[in-house]
């Protein structure tokens, strides 16, 4: 069973992700819609009822302007070695100031958690509980990194 890590703890997943074009009517609380499905309905859905999902190669410019209306953005990783989602996450946090839940899902290897965490993701959906625990441990496996990141915007050389 998939396990959700949020805030470095395994927590129940309260959200339901629906495929593109699959918009329930009415849209229940805590539904994650494809960005293109959410956009036309965004006035009706504001107030934090729905989140959106995008592919890792989505343009940050397409999601960025809407972050204030979104409680959750889920970024899909088609393969764990596809790092586009990392740049997208970092951009949503740093350039667009997204404050809500930034979730990674798809092919998430526990070892990617360290990168996800540092690129601004606070939630990752893993294959099972064991993977989730490994992911949490992996975030803490390196005490401090050299460069700046979303988590630590001050690079090590300014703190040495």
């Amino acid at each position, binding site marked *: 069973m998939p396990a959700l890590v949020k805030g470095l703890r395994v927590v129940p997943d309260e959200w339901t992700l629906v495929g593109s074009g699959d918009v329930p009517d009415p849209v229940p609380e805590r539904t994650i819609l494809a960005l293109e499905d959410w956009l036309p309905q965004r006035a009706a859905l504001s107030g934090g009822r729905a989140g959106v999902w995008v592919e890792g190669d989505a343009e940050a410019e397409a999601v960025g302007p809407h972050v204030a209306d979104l409680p959750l953005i889920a970024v899909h990783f088609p393969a764990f070695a596809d790092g586009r989602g990392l740049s*997208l996450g*970092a951009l949503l946090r740093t350039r667009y100031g997204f404050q809500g839940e930034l979730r990674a899902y798809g092919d998430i290897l526990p070892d990617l958690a360290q990168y996800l965490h*540092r690129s601004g993701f606070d939630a990752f959906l893993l294959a099972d509980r064991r993977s989730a625990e490994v992911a949490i441990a992996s975030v803490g*496996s390196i005490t*401090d990194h050299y460069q*700046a990141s979303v988590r630590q915007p001050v690079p090590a050389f300014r703190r*040495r």
Partner: protein
Amino acid sequence: MYRYDEFDQRFIDERVAQYREQTERYLAGELTDDQFLQLRLRNGLYIQRLAPMLRIAVPYGTLSSEQLRALADISRRYDKGYGHLTTRQNVQINWPALEVVPDILGDLARVRMHCIQTSGSCIRNVTTDQFAGVAADERVDARPYCEIVRQWSTQHPEFDWLPRKFKIAFNGAAADRAAIHVHDIGIRVDRAGDDIVFDFLVGGGLGRTPAIGSVIRTELPERHLLTYLEAIMRVYNRYGRRDNKYKARIKILVRAMTPEVFRDRVDAEWEHLKDGPSTLTREEIDRVLRCFEPPAYPRREDQTALLAERRLASPGFNAWVRNNVAPHKVPGYAVVTLSTKLTGVPPGDVSDVQMDAVADWADRYGFGELRIGHEQNFVLPDVPQEHLFELWEHADAHGLASANLGLLTDIVCCPGGDYCSLANAKSIPVAEAIQREFDDYDYLHDLGPIDLNISGCMNACGHHHVGHIGILGVDKKGAEFYQIALGGHAGDDASLGKILGPSFSRDEVTGVIGKILDVYVDKRVEEEPFLHCVRRIGIAPFKERVYASAG
């Protein structure tokens, strides 16, 4: 050399523990082969046709005698007593058992070494001129900047899962010994008044689609180094192709976008990053620069008379000084290249005994520091001229004094079909046959500088595109054939070789090389080097001679 502080040491120690845990999960069946592949590649562990191979990072080719001794020891304990110097200034060992790799990494960490990002689709070891810091033609020692980039690129949160591997090289000398024109990013370091500035070339590379990098920024001030790199990497990470690994390098993106559009994208990205927290501080630059301050050279005089006398007395020493000894910034010293290109030994292979010996010479004839060059040789950077003869005798006894540096037989060659599963053809036996055929030093010296490069397939590990003579293994209906190109060059005014024509069987290659050299000797004017001659007369005369007599 860069000196680790607690931060650096803790980082590599924790990285070893992290990798150990990953290996344990793999051995326990919790990671699939494909998953573990990506993790081990980011720690330099390849599994090749015959056996695993561990690539150890030698940042920008600089290491200490203590580190080289540790490598000798590791090769003895975990390999068959051999190491291999790579064309990217690293060291590889073969046959390490997967289970013990974490222990090897632990041993390396004790001497401040690691295998981080020596393979995989991430930012690789940053390289530079093997003569950095001592070359007489140097404007700026690029190593401090390489180190700053090494640190910045190590487990970067965004850029460790790129479309493809990514190679950055710096050059701070008049001559380009770092091949910056054929790197994903090549950076030229220069002075503008009192300031250090960088020119950025992007999108060079070899492999299937060889390309010369395009200049996208000139005279970038020093403090912006990391933010500008970040802007380039972000554009590449987001837009580089991932659907086809042969089209995934940044050169393809730059070409598809055009260098101008690519540059504009980078500039737009950089607008957001410029002057942010990753902007380098004076303190940080100075902290790293201090690690690379030149040693306190005891005062010496140039030994012109002594050397002339010795050279006259010994033709072997004479040839070696002529080819393998380069001028030093400081009077009385010399830069020595110890060649690994001995006929019959695969280029770049060194034994544990040789490594220990070289480490001893680095202490005795220098300040305990040495280099690895991309031509797969060792460099002793600070040899007092009065000790050159003595060093030559030792090097000769250890098979490290081939005086062929930069000459035809100083071949750069990939492992090829003997070791590599991707090969179309063997490459080492071709190198060996050429070395055997052309073994007359007087003839080789008369020919002058010729870079001969051999790759066993179009992945171009032997950099055949930039050989003055480039040999590429091709497959012709299951048989091994060789395509020959002329006129490639990796330095300033870099160029890619032009293919002569139909390929040759292995038996024919040496004869063809002989004919190419004959044409050169016939056609050259005065001291004209081979490359210049090819550029002047074009490949037609070579083609005529080679194919006329074949038909």
